[in-house]
């Protein structure tokens, strides 16, 4: 199958977006010490990953769909747990600081 030029450009755009978002997400995750901000950064990262997955799996659309669906389900599951952890940490220490977890050895 001949790859159309547009497809390639679309894929590259996707990669650009994914990489940029990944970088931003990692930056946010590493530089903020607020748990909530870290959660948000991870979510940005997840969006990047999702695009990459879809693009990379595009040779097999069915698999891409299934994988993406599974990914999204799992991530939303993860979100609950993380938020629950944040709430627990907050209740425990009254801050959103991640360092509090390091200190308490959590």
């Amino acid at each position, binding site marked *: 199958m001949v790859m159309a030029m547009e497809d390639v450009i679309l894929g590259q755009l996707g990669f650009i977006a994914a990489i940029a978002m990944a970088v931003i997400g990692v930056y946010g995750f590493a530089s903020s010490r607020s748990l909530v901000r870290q959660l948000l950064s991870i979510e940005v990262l997840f969006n990047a990953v999702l695009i990459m997955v879809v693009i990379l799996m595009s040779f097999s659309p069915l698999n891409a769909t299934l994988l993406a669906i599974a990914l999204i389900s799992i991530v939303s599951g993860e979100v609950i747990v993380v938020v629950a952890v944040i709430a627990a940490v*907050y209740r425990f*220490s*009254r*801050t959103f*600081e991640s360092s*509090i977890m390091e*200190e308490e050895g959590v």
Partner: protein
Amino acid sequence: MSVSVIGGPKRESDLKIPGTEVRKIEKDLYEVFIGPQHPGSGHMRIIIRVDGDVIVEADPDMGYVHRTMEKLGEIRQYIKNIPLFERMAIQDACNVTVPYVLALEKILDIEPPQRAKYLRSLLCEINRIAAHLYGFGIFGVFIGHSTMYMWAFADREVMVELAEKLTGARLTHSYPIPGGARRDMPQDFPQAARKAARYMRRRLEEYRKIFLDNPVMKARMEGVGYIPKKLAAELGVVGPVARASGIKYDARYNDPYDAYDEVDFEIPVFEEGDALARAWVKVEEIKQSLRIIEQAVDWLESHTSEAPIHDKFWAKSPPLWKKVFEKEGRVKLLPMMATMKIPPGKAFARGETARGEIVYYVESTGDSIPYRVRIVSPSARNAIVFKYVVPGHRVMDLPTIYGSIDYFPPEADR
């Protein structure tokens, strides 16, 4: 919220690095003002502190309608105080003024003629129904049921119409005066009253269907604002609130005045003590009031018409006055009423308004103005419910409780 640093020596050193302050969020409660410009409160402000959806602390801030009645009562002649005190609860005008008049009569040591007593009781009961319906309407709108509001107010108009026929004013009747009442019953009144009573009974059934037994409304009211009997006695709540909590107290029964020892009626008492019970108390009381109205009307019809005022104020009246009375049923006042001097003495009187017991303490030093008038109105006594019952409920329960205790700020603030 305050900015502070979590304790511990390790963190102290951290403090030196700029940008590492930690804003500690304390268990700060959300302070919400309910009122005065708020659909969930009438003319008052309730400062609630909420933890999420649960009220932790409620502080009723009254006084938005404090119109200094006690002070003005001290500088005005006795009879001028009747319209004044009436403004406490204008939809319950007769009920709030009768005890004041009773206190004056106690000091004067006179007793109104039987007809005046029946007339007063009649108007009191009409007022009671109107006030209960008013309370119902406000309660309905507080829990979002606008139809209840409209229906109650529609039926209240029937009662207002009756009162207007009897006294010539919609709400502020200024009807009782020391020694009697100001007007006699018009000719066509009994028939209208009986019709209204029959109509009202049927409507109560419809209220039950759309409001009290409506599952949505029942869910909102059941178990909300529960006041156990002990607590009710301790807080000294009055009226339907007390009677919904199983307290057998009604000033008409425990200290009968006017015609209440001659008519046959019941004091409904419920044990449940929640908002639903308070609503039901009102329904049952409306039924009893209708009975009283019918009895009073029967009595008044079967007795000859005479001026419903003590002879002291009527015996020496000029013929013109008698003519006016015969023609219009209007009792003229003696000009000396304005500056009537009352012998020295202190009297304490209580009466049952729609919202509960109202007490007056009148002290006279023999002057034409009272030395001291103390009023404790039912809403003023019920206000304490906000402080002791509301905490622990959800925010959405606040209007339910407010509506169910039928709190009326102008009355509470005096």
